[in-house]
């Protein structure tokens, strides 16, 4: 063929749209046909030439993809046939991938629902939370005093703010009275979170006026549950705590992310509120084109002004501003979930390595088949694509099975998740999760499909044909050993991680609580102010405690403003006149109102002095303090009889020192804590504590029954056994530790399988060499040692790499660990030892097979 004209060169370029095989076969002919046709058409006229060009362009657009699809169809058909011919390989590979991809999909569905999904309310990314903080008292994210909130709102330009206060109310209704969480909220709160009523209206600014008529809103769920979904309820009066409220609207459930079901307007009387009394929560929304940083510095500046203006209440107090996302999904939670995702990702990588290993072994076995196909004219490109197609097909099969597995396991997983995990209800295998799974599938298919393809395609046809049945490529073997080592390394990393998390959990669960939670039940109740004003409340509780104490099976009973692990905390700065250690600065102290039976109910030890007596006259000015508090204020000196000043509540005398109690969190060191008597102070909502000798399940019925006898209109809520509360407070670490441990075990097994595969192949491949060695006098033990040695050599490389990897990533775990260092040498050693033992076990079978080689048979084989 002579030199190509310009037109022919263009057509040649267009032909590139066709698959390689097609071009190999027909390109020459097509070019020639094109040239002849063009020559003819030119004699006909410009229209004919134009038509030809139109045709060939449309060919590349419409026909070429069809040819590609044809090739793909053939590849897939061929791959399916070859997979069907190796059912053991196919099943193993698909099952391994299904497990890996399924576990990743399931975990990702939780991570997505909790940590990645945007917030449920509109414009969630512009919503902020504002707290007060006091670095000098080490207080972060504290509630806000109402006068400060009012000042902020007047001065802030970068955001609109709204406040709320949480409480509980007892509501009448069709059945028993119920106690629900209530919110007193600024009307702006609802517009900030974009809540829209399903019926009626939202609060208006005028509802916040001090003299406005009382109004309320409820949630849809409460409306159905307690009022039978009465369609005419909006506009009707609702009597709450003796006051009649007009119900103005019904809100969708969860449209306000605060778990409340009953809403009232927050009414602020600036003259009535103490700037030092920090009781409210503040939410806000950034104004258009304002960044979080700008709002932060704006509010910092305002806090500085207020500090200068009101030093007696605001000295040392500043603001903390965070995004709503950080507030609803705390960083700890996100970190824990991403650790899980990383761990399960490791398992998938190991699974990939296993399948790649299997495919490499197969590729070596099929070398002759490949060589023959190359010899009869199959392009090398085609063979590579064939292996890749097989890989992708396997992942697709494995991925589909995996997604099914995830679809079925996510509901189970949700039941097992810690209940403290926010937003997890909607975890499901949905579109974004499926997209993730498809991405994972493609990636894994490419990873483990590309390796064998690369290792296989480089083979020399003539060499492979000459090599005969033995045909092994040293490059494939090297790859396989590298993969096995990588598996061991990843498994070691996971074992270290699991070891650290499990130890951390154990230390957390063995921590000294300072009280005995067994057989203790708590329940909460609120006395409506209209019927239980003044001394009537204390009289009621005294009667309740007497009845409880007299009930069969009850060992002790008490009431308190907040039981350990009951959620929430109360604290205030305390001054100790004359205590040199405090250098005149106040000590931030947790406080609890308790009845005399509190310490016996919870078995909190008395260290010195005495407990409350139960006589209001003596208890009113008395105070019990925790051992830590005594030490922090007076060191080793005797604290008994000393005076403490609790802000506006005046002076108290220390009459006793009690043991330290972990009230909030297993991982938190007990804070200085003081106890004041319920004879003097009562909280609107009190917690009843009962210790029984019998099964605690009955004691909640007991409390309910006695309360009902005393006053049938009172609701008892949050009934719970303290031991359960503590167990659920460790639920997140337990969940993480057990899942990571599970992943580590799976990883170790998969790695063992990888090592086993490589060694078993090695033995079958070196039978002749082993036979010769044995014929020359090497003993069976020497052969066993040879193979075991090779296994351990592979493992050693993996363990070293794994330890280095674990050192690199364990820093990441540091923040979630309790009582164990992220570089704990014992954990690292134990993980290395475990991996070593597992490898040894995996090497043993091939090693024994090597020792059983019969030299005669082995030498005769070829």
């Amino acid at each position: 063929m002579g030199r190509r004209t310009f037109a022919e060169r263009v057509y040649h370029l267009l032909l590139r749209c066709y698959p390689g095989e097609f071009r190999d076969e027909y390109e020459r002919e097509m070019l020639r046909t094109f040239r002849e046709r063009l020559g003819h058409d030119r004699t006909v006229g410009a229209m004919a030439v134009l038509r030809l060009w139109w045709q060939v362009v449309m060919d590349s657009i419409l026909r070429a993809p069809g040819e590609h699809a044809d090739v793909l169809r053939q590849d897939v058909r061929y791959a399916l046939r070859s997979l069907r011919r190796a059912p053991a390989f196919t099943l193993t590979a698909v099952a391994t991938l299904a497990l890996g991809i399924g576990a990743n999909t399931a975990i990702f569905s939780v991570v997505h629902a909790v940590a990645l999904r945007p917030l449920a309310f509109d414009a969630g990314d512009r919503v902020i939370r504002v707290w007060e903080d006091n670095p000098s008292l080490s207080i972060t994210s504290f509630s806000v005093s109402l006068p400060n909130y009012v000042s902020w709102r007047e001065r802030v330009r970068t955001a609109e703010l709204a406040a709320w206060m949480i409480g509980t109310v007892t509501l009448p209704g069709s059945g028993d009275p119920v106690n629900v969480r209530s919110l007193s909220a600024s009307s702006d709160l609802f517009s900030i979170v974009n809540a829209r009523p399903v019926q009626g209206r939202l609060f208006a600014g005028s509802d916040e006026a001090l003299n406005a008529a009382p109004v309320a809103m409820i949630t849809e769920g409460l409306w159905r549950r307690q009022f039978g979904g009465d369609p005419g309820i909006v506009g009707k009066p609702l009597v709450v705590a003796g006051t009649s409220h007009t119900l103005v609207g019904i809100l969708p459930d969860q449209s306000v992310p605060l778990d409340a079901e009953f809403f009232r307007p927050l009414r602020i009387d600036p003259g009535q509120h103490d700037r030092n009394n920090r009781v409210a929560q503040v939410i806000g929304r950034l104004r258009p084109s304002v960044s979080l940083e700008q709002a932060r510095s704006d509010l910092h500046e305002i806090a500085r002004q207020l500090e200068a203006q009101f030093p007696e209440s605001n000295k040392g107090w500043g603001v903390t501003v965070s995004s709503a996302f950080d507030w609803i999904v705390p960083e700890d939670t996100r970190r824990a979930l991403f650790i899980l995702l990383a761990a399960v990702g490791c398992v998938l990588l190991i699974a990939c390595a296993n399948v790649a290993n299997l495919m490499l072994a197969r590729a070596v076995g099929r070398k002759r088949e490949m060589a023959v196909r190359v010899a009869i004219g199959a392009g090398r490109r085609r063979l590579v694509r064939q292996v890749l197609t097989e890989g992708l097909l396997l992942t697709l099969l494995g991925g589909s099975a995996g997604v099914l597995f995830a679809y079925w396991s996510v509901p189970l997983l949700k039941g097992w998740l810690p209940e403290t995990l926010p937003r997890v209800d909607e975890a499901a295998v949905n579109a974004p999760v499926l997209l993730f799974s498809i991405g994972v599938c493609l990636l894994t298919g490419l990873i483990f499909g590309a390796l064998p393809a690369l290792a296989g395609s480089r083979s020399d046809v003539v060499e492979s044909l000459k090599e005969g049945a033995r045909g092994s490529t040293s490059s494939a073997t090297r790859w396989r050993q590298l993969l096995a080592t990588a598996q061991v390394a990843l498994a070691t990393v996971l074992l270290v991680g699991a070891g650290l998390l499990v130890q951390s959990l154990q230390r957390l669960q063995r921590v000294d609580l300072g009280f005995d939670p067994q057989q203790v039940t708590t329940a909460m109740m609120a006395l409506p102010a209209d019927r239980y004003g003044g001394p009537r409340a204390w009289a009621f509780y005294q009667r309740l405690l007497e009845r409880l104490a007299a009930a069969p099976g009850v060992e002790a009973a008490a009431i308190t403003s907040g039981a350990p692990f009951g959620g929430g905390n109360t604290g205030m700065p305390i001054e100790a006149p004359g205590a040199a250690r405090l250098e005149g600065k106040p000590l931030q102290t947790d406080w609890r109102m308790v009845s005399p039976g509190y310490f016996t109910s919870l078995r909190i030890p008395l260290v010195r002095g005495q407990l409350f007596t139960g006589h209001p006259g003596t208890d009113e000015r008395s105070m019990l303090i925790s051992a830590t508090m005594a030490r922090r204020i007076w060191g080793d000196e005797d604290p008994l009889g000393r005076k403490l000043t609790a802000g506006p509540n005046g002076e108290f005398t220390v009459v006793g020192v009690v043991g330290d109690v972990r009230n909030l969190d297993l991982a938190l060191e007990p804070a200085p804590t003081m106890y004041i008597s319920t004879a003097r102070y009562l909280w609107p909502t009190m917690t009843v504590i009962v210790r029984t000798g019998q099964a605690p399940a009955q004691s909640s019925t007991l409390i309910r029954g006695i309360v009902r006898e005393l006053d049938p209109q009172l609701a008892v809520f949050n009934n719970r056994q303290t031991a359960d509360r503590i167990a659920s407070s460790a639920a997140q670490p337990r969940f993480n530790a057990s899942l990571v441990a599970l992943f580590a075990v799976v990883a170790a097994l998969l790695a063992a399988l990888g090592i086993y595969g490589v060694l078993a192949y090695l033995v079958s491949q070196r039978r002749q060499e082993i036979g010769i060695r044995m014929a020359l006098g090497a003993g069976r033990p020497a052969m066993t040692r040879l193979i075991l040695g090779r296994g351990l050599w592979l493992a050693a490389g993996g363990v070293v790499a794994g330890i280095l990897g674990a050192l690199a990533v364990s820093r990441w775990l540091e923040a979630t660990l309790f009582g164990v260092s992220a570089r704990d040498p014992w954990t690292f050693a134990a993980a290395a030892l475990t991996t070593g033992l597992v490898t040894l076990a995996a090497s043993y079978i091939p090693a024994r097979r090597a020792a059983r080689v019969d030299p005669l048979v082995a030498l005769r084989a070829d």
Partner: protein
Amino acid sequence: MKYETDTDVQALLPLAPAFLHILIALGEGERHGYAIMQDVAARTDGRVQMSPGTLYGSIKRMLADGLIEELTTGAAGADERRRFYCLTKFGRRVAAAEADRLTALLSQARSSGLVPRRS
């Protein structure tokens, strides 16, 4: 060459128009690609101008279906290594069956009055 049954013939019907054109063009003897193209154009008064993509895409499939085969040596030694194609027996049977099918259709159309009868 495998043994093709009537079922194999029926499975290919109705034929794609391009296939039928190519079969007809090859009815008189072997031809190379451009000759097929010319033949089809001539028979249809230039109304059917196959594109190279259609032509060779069809040839590829027809070879796979066993309708045509490639001659191993160039006919009449005209061009060096030019690829010539000819009908197989099976190809002839399929072409005949398609012609029968079309004839039957045509006579149905005539009897229902859609097409004027031949005078």
